[in-house]
């Protein structure tokens, strides 16, 4: 057994210190130590993207990063998207356009899309098709996920 290590990082604007084994992935630490179970585990090998979170503003697979590596970093999860009662424009668009069914991939897609829209001044549909292909959904055939992200991008003035 290896010693546990203290890790201090910021999750959704709140600074937290947790104590974890080095082998604890960021995904597991968010779910277990931070109680933020919106970040889902669908494959734990970096393909499905259900565990996508923003680290320093960019989307990463939290199953492929150890929590100890997040020391001093800013992490944002699906729980950090809405502001109080107000859904994030992406959340609202997913609701309006039926962008989810079982909801298991949804947090990962929301975070991925937030990362795309926040890191680009403007996007077009072809780029979105490419960048949203990073995550897997088994229910929607992606039709309404794309539609929702397009609508949110348009609403946020981010559509080319």
């Amino acid at each position, binding site marked *: 057994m290896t010693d546990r290590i203290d890790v201090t990082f910021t999750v959704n604007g709140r600074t937290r210190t947790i104590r974890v084994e080095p082998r604890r992935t960021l995904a597991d630490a968010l779910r277990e130590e931070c109680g933020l179970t919106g970040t889902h585990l669908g494959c*734990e*090998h970096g393909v499905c993207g259900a565990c996508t979170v923003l680290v320093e503003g960019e989307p990463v697979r939290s199953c492929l990063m150890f929590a100890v590596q997040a020391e001093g970093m800013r992490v944002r999860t699906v729980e950090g998207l809405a502001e109080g009662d107000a859904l994030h424009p992406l959340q609202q668009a997913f609701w309006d356009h039926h962008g989810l069914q*079982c*909801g298991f991939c949804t947090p990962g897609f929301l975070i991925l899309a937030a990362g795309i829209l926040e890191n680009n001044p403007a996007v077009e549909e072809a780029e979105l098709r490419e960048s949203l*292909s990073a995550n*897997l959904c088994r*229910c929607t*055939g992606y039709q309404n996920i794309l539609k929702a992200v397009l609508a949110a991008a348009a609403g946020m003035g981010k559509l080319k």
Partner: protein
Amino acid sequence: MSWVGRRLPRYEDPVLLRGQGSYVADLARGARILRFVRSPAARGRILGIAAPPGAQVITAADLDGVGPLCPRLNRPDYVPIAQPLLAKDRVTYVGEAIAAVLADTAAAAEDLADGIAVEIAAEAPVVTLDEALAPGASLVHDRAANNTVIDARFETGDVAAAFASADRIIEFAFLSHRQAAMPLEPRGALAACDPATRRVTLTASTQAPHILRTGIADILGMPEADLRVIAPDVGGGFGQKMALPPEYVVAVWAARHFGGAVVWLEDRLENLTAAFHARDQRLALRGAFARDGALLALDADILCNVGAYSNYPVTSGVEPLMALAELPGPYAVRNYRVRARGIATNTCPMAPYRGVSRPVITAAMERLMECAAASLGRDALEVRRRNLITSFPCISATGIVHDGGSYREAMEKAAEVVDVAGFRARQRAARAEGRHLGLGFSVFAERTGYGTPAFAARRMEITPGFERVELVMDPSGSVEARIGSSPHGQGLKTVLAQVLADEIGIRPDQIRVVAGDTDRTPYGWGTFASRSAVLAGGACKLAAMRLRERLATVAGQELEAAVSDIEIGDGRAAVRGTDLGIEIRQLARAAYHQSHRFPAIAETGLSAAATYDPPGTFSNACHVAIVEVDIATGGVAIERFVVVEDAGLLLNPMIVDGQIHGGVAQGIANALYEEVVYDGDGNALTGSLADYLVPTLAEIPGIEIHHLETITEASVTGAKGVGEGGAIGAPAAVLNAVADALQPFGVGIFAMPITPQRILGLLRQNRSPS
């Protein structure tokens, strides 16, 4: 205006969008982690299991007297196979659970499982259909001769005479490789034993909580009352989560044996290799055609590789029997002979997966129509036209009633939408440039929403079918609807709220649908077989009509009018033709708090229940794919995908479209990408999502949907089932499109998925255009 028919956003969504959903893994804090030690060998004898000292290990010896799992059909051509919860003396497939360990964390449980040494005297496995059926093949189970666990035959009409009189006989073998349902949330079960009462609450990712309760209670020899099963948010199931996994039984056993809470969270490797598989089938198909394209007779020999064990409750017969009953599909063939077998192998067991056999048999039948047309020099739509059922009701060759639909109309509409003549011109022009475009049609009818009669015809020991709904209006006028069905992500609660709202006269947001909790809901069968909207929706409608009558009784008394003069809607009851009225919430208040005044409803109060058990209704559709095949790489790109769907009355068109989208994507995956691969030693080679190719947005084209609405009396809501149709129709359309694109090369497309490697293999055999 009615609530049914609206694109109402889902009530399920806000919680899920905020990341506040409750999937099994989210509820497991504090539970001990259960992890299984799985067989690395496909077949062999267990010589010994050695655990490190002090480890909490469960083996078959600990479970002595518990189990086995033995799903049954009451038919002589079926061989029931008993499955131990943990492998006892022998292992029969790679991934079979041999032992289980308990630890405080998932990582520690894995450490412990890694430390367990299982010694196995490995034997040569039977992996493929050919190996299993070879003369003298080793038997997977001694009691299943020829490795055959079901051997069903059916014949009607005069098949021999029809073949003798045929102008053309089309014959081929069609191969479907194995697929996995791959719900994004793997399976999981949290079992908590109350130390005071010894009652266990099992929170499980399942489509069928009541069946789970029955199955587990039977195996563990406990009263069902001592087991509560909860299906929390379920991250997709697609059939895989309707079957009872032995792992769930072990979880309940462990909670009872050791006390406290125990959770098994399947990982993706386990899900891809040791959860259930499907669609590993081979069909030898012969069609006898007349010169005008009429299908005179159909003769099929269907082999399903069903793996090492059966599945509870629908058994390993589910694929062969579905194929046997439904092969003719939307075509009116009178002479039909079929033999459908389930063949045991040393591979992961089969269970239902979205469409159950019909993606495969539809692909085979639609290839048959195309091949017949080509051979007869006729247009393939014309051949279909000649054979499609057009007058309803129609009793099929296997005795199934086609209640009414738009089989031909859907095809004609699809042909018009894609502009076949325009496409042919474009195809010619592209071919001149060395580009290979193809157009493929798929016409099918899907039996949906069927109750006990259909399942009884399969002679299942456990015959599912009915659905029950219980409604209670509370004193504030809100309604709780307790349903036996159990959604797995499809938006059922929203749809049922729409049905109920119209009938009761309140808004859908005043309705709480309670599902997935055996303590709170009437016994029901869960969600599968495109049944939930039809069955639970029908039961909701019937129960709501009764509740409405009770409200009318109260209103009649309050308004001093005849009950027959009471109209209910928009939250009010009113006397027809007057401005006299009262709000429903006032009626509810009165019914509870002035109950002495309403002797007419003393027995029921404002509650009502109904059970619905219909014979079934056929939805139908035509799918069209336009593809481009890159003949240098074998790559297939789908340029356009059109669906003309008839699902009867659309309760919520947005949700219907969502079902079609998802089904089509899985069908495209089935046609082009996904394949579970075993090597000769029975090792599953596709244990990661890097190897098992679930398509991304980049592979799935835009899907255009057009609706026809044939209103059926076979469903009280007018709705037909739509959960599986997308997956059923899409593979055939894609395969036909690929075949059309490659028509100049004279290659036959009779396998799915039709991968780039297979396409180049076919082209290599015949490089130059003929």
